[in-house]
């Protein structure tokens, strides 16, 4: 990660020689492209970059990156990456995971990585379905959905991944979507730049088992009124600035900026360091359908706090400072020995 080593790469330098095996039209392709482009742009030497994934369609990702990589077991990418980054703080570690991989079987490791603040970039490919196992519902599938495992409709109230990450004290939380290449890349770069655990939810279309799950946010005719792209220091407006978000006490509401009642100046200004704002934005979600709030994209929360691996490294250094570099003979002998003739 030292400046000296910075290299000039193109996105295609990060394409491996493996044939890509996603279904035609899968949102994963677009994400892959932007990740390749983003890591190239960071200029980090490719041998210092590692992609760790679990199991799922999305988790095949590392095979397609010409970096170090591991396609591990279901749900454990976060835990594997925690060990890797702790042992090797010098590496740039990316985690690729699906909504099932990270929120169902891997939910615990995810929240623990977030609280510990291990400096990794978590890309959660949320397609609101189990792709690889052919179409069961996931912890993000909306209630009522008919899937292979819910022929009468899903009754499991879904997670709101952003709130969950916030509840786990994540230090960087963002959302993007497979159909917005530039936004994706920008978010990936910000996530990478953020020192600490970066949690990025990516809405990803699975044309085979859950086509159109995010149409409201990607379809030409719908997306403007349904999406709110936020930026630090900018007022929250959307629908080509025709609408805005204002706070009524603690309650957010959508206002018409074309009328005289409200102007941009009334709109909430995004402050990614304010947890309460982040919480309110996280609640722009399905729970509250009545309120008709747009879905939020961008960096929802960002906070700097010490990373786990740095603190551990500090303890190692401190121990060496205090006790001296470990002397194996002294360790083996321990404090009390005796001689026997």
């Amino acid at each position: 990660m030292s400046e000296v080593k910075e290299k000039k790469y193109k996105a295609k330098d990060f394409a491996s020689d493996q044939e890509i095996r996603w279904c035609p039209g899968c949102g994963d392709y677009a994400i892959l492209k932007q990740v390749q482009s983003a890591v190239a742009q960071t200029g980090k030497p490719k041998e210092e970059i590692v992609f760790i994934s679990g199991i799922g369609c999305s988790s095949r990702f590392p095979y397609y990156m010409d970096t170090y990589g591991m396609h591990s077991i279901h749900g454990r990418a976060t835990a594997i990456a925690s060990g890797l980054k702790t042992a090797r703080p010098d590496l740039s570690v990316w985690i690729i995971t699906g909504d099932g991989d990270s929120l169902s079987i891997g939910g615990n490791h995810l929240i623990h990585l977030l609280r510990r603040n291990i400096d990794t970039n978590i890309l959660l490919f949320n397609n609101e379905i189990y792709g690889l196992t052919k179409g069961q519902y996931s912890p993000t599938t909306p209630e009522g959905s008919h899937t292979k495992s819910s022929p009468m409709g899903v009754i499991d109230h879904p997670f709101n991944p952003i709130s969950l990450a916030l509840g786990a004290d994540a230090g960087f939380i963002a959302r993007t979507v497979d159909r917005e290449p530039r936004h994706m890349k920008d978010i990936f770069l910000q996530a990478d730049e953020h020192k600490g655990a970066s949690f990025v939810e990516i809405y990803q279309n699975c044309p085979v088992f859950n086509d159109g799950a995010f149409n409201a946010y990607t379809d030409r005719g719908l997306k403007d009124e349904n999406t709110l792209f936020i930026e630090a220091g900018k007022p929250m407006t959307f629908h080509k600035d025709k609408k805005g978000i204002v706070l009524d006490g603690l309650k957010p509401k959508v206002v018409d900026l074309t009328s005289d009642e409200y102007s941009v100046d009334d709109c909430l200004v995004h402050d990614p360091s304010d947890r309460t704002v982040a919480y309110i934005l996280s609640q722009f979600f399905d729970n509250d359908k009545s309120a008709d709030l747009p879905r939020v994209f961008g960096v929802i929360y960002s906070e700097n706090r010490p990373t786990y691996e740095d603190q551990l490294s500090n303890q190692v250094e401190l121990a060496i400072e205090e006790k001296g570099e470990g002397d194996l003979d002294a360790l083996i002998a321990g404090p009390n020995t005796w001689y026997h003739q």
Partner: protein
Amino acid sequence: MAEVKEKREQITVLFAGDSGDGMQLTGNQFTSTHALFGNDISTFPNFPAEIRAPQGTVNGVSGFQVKFGSSRIFTPGDAADVLVAMNAAALKANMHKLKKGGILIANTAGFDSKNLKLANCEDENPLESERLEDVMVYDVDITELTMAALEDSPLTKKEKLRTKNMFVLGFLFWMFNRSLESTENYIKEKFSKLPDVIDANVSVLKAGYNFGETSEAFTSRYQVEPASLEPGTYRSVMGNQGVAIGLIAAAKKAGLEMFYGSYPITPASDILHELAKHKNFSVRTFQAEDEIAAVTSAIGASFGGALGVTASSGPGIALKTEAIGLAIMLELPLVVVNVQRGGPSTGLPTKTEQADLLQAVYGRNGEAPIPVVAARSPEEAFEATYEAVRISVEHMTPVMLLSDGYIANGASPWKFPEASSLKPIKPLYAEKTEEEYMPYARDEKLVRKWAIPGTEGLEHRIGGLEKEELTGNVSYDPDNHEKMVKLRAEKIDKIADYIPEQEIDNGSDSGKVLILSWGSTYGAVKTAVEDLLKDDYDVGHAHLRYLNPMPRNLGEVLTKFDKVLVPEMNDGQLIHIIQSKYNKRCIPLNKIKGIPFTSAEIVESVKENYA
């Protein structure tokens, strides 16, 4: 007063009292002093299952057994020569462990009606039990004598009472003719900021010693000469310590940083506690959220070029099995320590057992062979651990190291090695060459090379799906799969070329009965075989450290005996593997009580089966 010093070769003392009575500390001090004196020693602490079980009850009894002697000692003793019972519950729970003709030192204050009631002994005071007829009973009001010794001390009554274990210790030092110096030093260091406490403890310690000196009642004093141990420098070591130190030493000799991912569990937690103290060896301990994260974080660290290690006990090991399968596919170093305890399920967490062997060898989905190494005693834990790391690193494979609660918490003197004398451990790193890098190319040991992230030109991807030979790419080819399954198995089998042949530990190398043991039964079997040989039984003892693969010559060793007896603290696990692998029917000897074999039990079984 006539001072008769009886010579003894070996003595077993059992300290028993309430959890709050400080028996563990007493036992440890007693042990240190004898070790320093030059006796060989073995100890066995026996904690109550509860953190602080109700005072005075049988469940709250904490015991510490120690055997020391002028000859080699391999177990903490079958039965006690001396039993210290601080209260009624302690006597009730341990009375049966006292030898006929043994000595009981009973703290009479612990046998008042309150204590009798708490111990559920309202009907019969255990001090009046028939069982004590063959025993020399010394009633001492330790509590009162302690208080008397501290008349002038400024401590509170509660604080004063806490020192009564020092009285016991002082008295036993008198009985075995040992110096108080080491304990005095210990007290001074431990309470360096509390001079009153130092004074009180030292006074009571001396009071105990003087009580022996002056009280007319005590005529027995024993003389146990130093043992004829191999000359050299010794320390005392507990099994979990041995494992921890072994890990650090092996990592260091291999030039690796160690990453230890672990989730606390009895009786493995002390390995974590020990390792966490040695960060100056660049040891990184990670207290994971669960056992799955513990093992997978270790795998991640190994992928990064560190030595990934994890430890647990039965239930936690069960949780790690899926991930161990991944490590098998990845062919990366990984050491998994299982400090076995009584099972199944939560079982008997504070008790010992050897019932996870089949889990270690077979407990994974698919064809998933791994090396299994077992420690046999506290002082050998270091070496077994070192071997486990060596195999893991040099053969690029997860290794299971088996220990158990008995080894973990037991202590023995250990003639420790010098760091420079330890076998070198050589990781085989991949390097960038002209040719295309093949992550799954193998050397003559069938071992692939380790390519560490950060190395330019060796970028590669691995995973849990079946991989193509050489390239390591995902492959669904049927023939490749069979080939890879066989290769992975052969790689493990080949390790047999890199471990010693099976030796006969003691006794004849052919003849009537072979005792084939593994793990912590070593000491009991060793002692039993010594006894049997003295009685001219035709018996040999082979002790397995390597349970998978087994030493090349083991089959041959077995054929040389008429009978093979396999003692195990389980319902028959090693015997199962042996019978399947070798065309030899063996005789099982099983004890599934959460407590170790006595050597007498082994002797008896050999005699029964001898003919």
